């Protein structure tokens, strides 16, 4: 394999690994802050303990997120120097701002961690969680605008003859057409995933017959917020679909195996593609659905792949990734919806074992959806690194030994995964919330 392929693999591996921790980094502070705020408001130590325990685990994951984020930041220049030479100047503003946001988060995370007992009024401590959320979410926002620029470059003039860009408008480049839909989808799905991660942990303990109120409260909090987030993620996804139909038809068409440009376009779910004849077998066809997804009307005209030069087709396997992401999204809506329904209507058993099991399963699934959705979004842009401007093969480093780097970093990521899991398990195994509550000196409200 050549440097281009190794560079692609190493970048994909690093980002794929990073987004697991980055997602936790963006979403978990929201739930920590919600728990602490609610606990202070209700004077309920269960929620305060929840915030404390979540924070304890969070720090470990943040560390891995920080170091892998530094890796991908530097790799951008080391593996894709030609890309940076071309647009380094354009994407530097959001990269710079992202670092600021991260800085802000880093400072207040340090403060948040070490001031639990420093203030007389606990509200002050809770207030320091707000900059943590702001910092982590804003860094996700800024970095997503960079990715959005690669999907739909704007704010620059590109001269295909000289291969140079001019007339840079920093703000227009940052707020390019992809930015709103991508940012909405990234942020809402990261929050949602963390809701299921934390909810899954609580559900797991309830399934193990540990029926302490602590777990029940944690599950109610994460699932009720999670349900709202699941709906928001669906809306953001729908907006993204319409956006793709308009601005990146190749990506949508490849994801849907949609070849003939037509109105009343059906949506295909699953199935197997014959790459020679381009015929789909065994797929579920939903009439009009693709037109509705793309344009909100069954008569919407959806551009098919046949209208796009074949050397600009993305790989067609992204169909499966897209379907998986969407299916998991609906699964999360249904599971959290069922739980909330049982709770509010007081019908059936709120702690139904099957729903609890479904919530536990939802935790890893939501991470699978993050990964598949991300791979779909990135591979769907192939063969371009910047749509219409630069192809991936022209952007990679000419240096040798990328394969050595790949082996080194693969080893590092495997080690970090194993060790951090071991550390997290050890951190919580002998320190159950039941024990910790026993040592807290507060009156406990039952409920």
């Amino acid at each position, binding site marked *: 394999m050549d440097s281009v392929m190794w560079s692609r693999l190493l970048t994909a591996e690093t980002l794929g690994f990073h987004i697991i921790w980055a997602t936790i980094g963006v979403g978990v502070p929201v739930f920590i802050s919600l728990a602490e705020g609610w606990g202070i408001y209700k004077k309920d130590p269960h929620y305060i303990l929840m915030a404390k325990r979540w924070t*304890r685990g969070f*720090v*470990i994951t*943040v*560390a*891995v997120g*920080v*170091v*892998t*984020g*530094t*890796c991908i*930041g*530097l790799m951008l*220049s*080391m*593996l894709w*120097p*030609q890309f*940076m*030479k071309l647009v*380094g*100047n*354009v994407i*530097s*503003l959001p*990269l*710079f701002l*992202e*670092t*600021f946001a*991260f*800085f*802000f988060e*880093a*400072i*207040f995370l*340090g*403060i948040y*961690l*070490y001031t639990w007992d*420093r203030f007389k009024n606990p509200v002050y401590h809770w207030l320091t969680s707000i*900059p943590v959320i702001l910092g982590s979410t804003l860094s996700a926002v800024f970095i997503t605008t960079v990715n959005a620029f690669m999907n739909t470059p704007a704010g620059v003039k590109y001269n295909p003859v000289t291969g140079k860009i*001019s007339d*840079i408008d*920093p*703000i227009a480049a940052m707020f390019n057409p992809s930015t709103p839909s991508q940012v909405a989808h990234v942020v809402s799905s990261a929050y949602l995933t963390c809701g299921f991660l934390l909810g899954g942990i609580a559900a797991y303990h309830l399934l193990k017959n540990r029926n302490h109120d602590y777990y029940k409260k944690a599950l109610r909090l994460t699932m009720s917020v999670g349900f709202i987030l699941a709906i928001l993620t669906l809306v953001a996804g729908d907006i993204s679909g319409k956006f793709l139909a308009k601005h990146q038809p190749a990506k949508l068409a490849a994801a849907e195996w949609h070849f003939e440009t037509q109105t009343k376009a059906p949506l295909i779910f699953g199935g197997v593609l014959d790459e020679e004849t381009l015929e789909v077998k065994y797929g579920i066809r939903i009439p009009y659905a693709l037109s509705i997804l793309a344009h909100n009307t069954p008569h919407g005209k959806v551009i098919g792949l046949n209208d796009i030069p074949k050397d600009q087709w993305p790989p067609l396997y992204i169909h499966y990734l897209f379907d998986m992401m969407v299916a998991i999204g609906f699964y999360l809506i249904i599971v959290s919806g069922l739980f909330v329904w049982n709770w509010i209507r007081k019908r059936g058993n709120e702690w139904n074992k099957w729903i609890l099991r479904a919530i536990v399963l939802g935790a890893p699934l939501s991470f699978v959806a993050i990964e598949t959705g991300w791979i779909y979004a990135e591979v769907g842009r192939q063969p371009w690194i910047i749509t219409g401007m630069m192809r991936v093969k022209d952007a990679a*480093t*000419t*240096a040798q030994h*990328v394969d050595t*780097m790949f082996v080194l*970093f693969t080893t590092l990521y495997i080690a*970090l995964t194993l*060790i*951090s899991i071991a*550390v997290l398990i*050890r*951190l919580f195994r*002998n320190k159950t919330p039941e024990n910790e509550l026993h040592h807290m000196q507060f009156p406990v409200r039952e409920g």
Partner: protein
Amino acid sequence: MSLELIGITVLWTFLFGYLIIASIDFGAGFFSYYSMLTQKEHIINQIIDRYLSPVWEVTNVFLVFFFVGLVGFFPDTAYYYGTALLIPGGVALLLLSIRGSFYAFANYGARKSRIYMFLYGLTGLFIPASLSTVLTISEGGFIEKTNQGIHFHADRLFTSPYSWSVVFLALVSVLYISASFLTYYADKAQDTKARELLRTYALWWSGPTILASLLVFWGISRHNPAHFHSMLNISWMFVASFLCFLVAVFLMWKKRAFGVAFIFVMFQFAFAFYGYGYAHLPYLLYPYVTIQSALTNSTMGWALVIAFIAGLLLLIPSLYLLMRLFLFNAKYVRGQSK
């Protein structure tokens, strides 16, 4: 002041910030591990932990800030250094990753592990060594531009006496800066035992630091005479640096005003660092990249400067708050956090 000069000044300042704050961190990791080996951990580890825990993440950001800013202001540097530094940069990244995550594993995990501490301490010495090679490379002679692209001569780097003198300087100054800061911190905590131990470390490492600086001077005069000559033109800065060194060592020797001593340590490095950087101009990579050639778009340059100022307005109060809570809070430093 022209845009490229503002840009490089801002970036150089961030690199200086990283130099100081990371040195404290790297050195502390090493002292932590060393004291564990010599069974003195009970004396200084508390002091080190209390300082490092709330700030370790901030340290990392200074570095990220520097390279993101460098690529932003001067995208050409990404092309040259990016292509050339795949292996050394990759190794530095690997070390940074191990160090960052193992800090958290060791300090927020369930128990202290000797292996974690070992990795944390050792990587703290290798990282400054590997990062300092970038400064060496910037002097020219290690990267060559041919028709096939950019070539990095790793063999020349490994056999260059100049390169080794820079590595040596990086190592000893890390230990010296770190020990002099921690001495001050221990003094604030009224922890006399820790203070005395750290003070001997600081004095012990002050000699090699000056020796290494002289070696670097000698190395640069042979490797890049042009740069050496422009350094001689502003030789007063290096004299000032040496005077600050004398004051700092004197104060520590006399056990007086450790805070002031540390400020003089910072001045010592500031004079030398800015003097070195100023004399290096206009080159970012000798002789291929100058600050004028690398800056390609002024709209973006100004946008970055504005973003930078806005960011500082946000950061300075937050950093101040962080220091108020953890550095200059006598109760916290002494470990009476309630």
